């Protein structure tokens, strides 16, 4: 492990991975509990469109991803009031817009760089500018989440009571969609568009199996996320495969292990009683 950290690109990748592993479950827990897991998938495709726009216009692709994903996140919130009973349709609309934009730009041949590494995730391509972006977006996101923690819990748990208590639900939903966009943009370089939603949802799904309160579920989500991403990063380096795909496989494996452990402990308890 120490051997591979002598490479500068591995140090950069590790730096970004640590931030991703904390940020993704912090956002993911609210998405999962509000039954919005698929928003992660839609917005990761939106980030691909942002990346291609960034690459086409010679701008930083992560910045492009953040801007376009934020717009799509806000668009989802906006469309929610028009399609109240068909929220899944909103995701299809935004997905069409995003994938359509990305495919059109990629197929036009006007890209000044290769977008493939963003599809599958890559640790070789993390630049110093990316690291600064990751640091800034992660810090802003974590501070915002800490400030809005109780409001966000209530919007997810009992939105009507949140409104009565004076929470500005609509405003916070817009802020949250920007936070989702930030988390996706910082993660897309390493994890890749295709499996990004797994980073948002799977550590939370695993932590939910433990049957704890909100704070402990969040802490366990971060714990599982750190395990998933770091194991994914190190093992993918030795196996010479894309880190995103392998991290997704590890997060599924950890979930299965926890489910198995849960089943085993309940069977043991049943035997004892």
């Amino acid at each position, binding site marked *: 492990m120490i051997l591979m950290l002598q490479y500068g690109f591995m140090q950069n990748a590790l730096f970004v991975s640590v931030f991703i592993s904390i940020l993704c479950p912090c956002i993911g827990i609210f998405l999962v*509990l509000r039954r919005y897991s698929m928003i992660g998938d839609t917005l990761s495709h939106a980030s691909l469109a942002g990346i291609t726009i960034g690459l086409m216009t010679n701008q930083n692709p992560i910045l492009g991803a953040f801007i376009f994903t934020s717009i799509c996140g806000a668009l989802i919130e906006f469309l929610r009031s028009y399609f109240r009973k068909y929220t899944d349709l909103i995701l299809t609309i935004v997905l069409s817009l995003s994938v359509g934009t990305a495919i059109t730009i990629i197929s036009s041949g006007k890209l000044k760089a290769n977008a493939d590494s963003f599809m599958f995730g890559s640790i070789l391509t993390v630049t110093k500018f990316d690291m600064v972006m990751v640091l800034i977006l992660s810090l802003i996101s974590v501070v915002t989440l800490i400030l809005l923690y109780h409001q966000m819990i209530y919007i997810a748990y009992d939105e*009507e009571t949140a409104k009565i208590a004076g929470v500005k639900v609509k405003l916070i939903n817009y802020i949250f969609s920007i936070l989702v966009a930030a988390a996706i943009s910082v993660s897309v370089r390493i994890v890749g568009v295709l499996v990004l939603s797994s980073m948002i949802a799977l550590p939370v799904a695993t932590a939910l199996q433990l049957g704890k309160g*909100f704070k402990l579920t969040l802490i366990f989500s971060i714990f599982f996320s750190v395990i998933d991403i770091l194991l994914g990063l190190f093992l993918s380096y030795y196996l010479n495969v894309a880190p995103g795909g392998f991290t997704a496989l590890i997060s599924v494996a950890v979930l299965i292990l926890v489910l198995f452990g849960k089943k085993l402990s309940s069977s043991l308890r049943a035997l004892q009683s």
Partner: protein
Amino acid sequence: MIKAENLYFSYTGAPPHVLNGINLEIGEGEYISVVGENGCGKSTLMRLLLKFLKPTKGIIINQAGRIGYVPQKNDFSNSNFPITVHEVLNSYRRLLKLKDKGVIAKSLEQVGMSDFAGALMGNLSGGQSQKILIARALMGNPGLLILDEPSTGVDIKSQKDIYGFLKKINKESGITIVSVEHNLDAAISNSTLIYHMTNGQGHLCTPIQYANEYLNRKG
């Protein structure tokens, strides 16, 4: 304290209206049960009082100040949500910007649920979670408590506890209570007034008057 004048409401903004010219005045310290058949408009009236909806025509004046709300259990069956009783109350305390952390213990104590602070909300029985939601609604001393069918999904023993408690706080602290009720026995034996609704209109009567009306209709 709460006044609804010539209140009309339609979900589309055009006729037919769900509420057809409601005129209602609720004095301070009253315990009013809103009763009526399904679809008569009682839930819509409650949602207007809570400001979740805006009247199509007419006005509502609320001088009661802060409102405490106890949602209906069926609408609020988020039983898989990973949250403890303490977290439910503590986050609500933070939303209300109450500095005193002691209000959590006090709230739990007044509904006899002090031992359940660490329990997961999803593991509580219907009666227990209803008591927690009432305790939450009473945080920050609201002037008006609105309940949506408080006995739904609650066992008989807990129903007795809950209505006994509501009657007690109504008498002792003078809090105004508006409860949308399908439990007519509870409405007749606990409230000071009953608002009987039919087809988007209603009239106020005493529990005794309502009991007579009800018996006449049945019989």
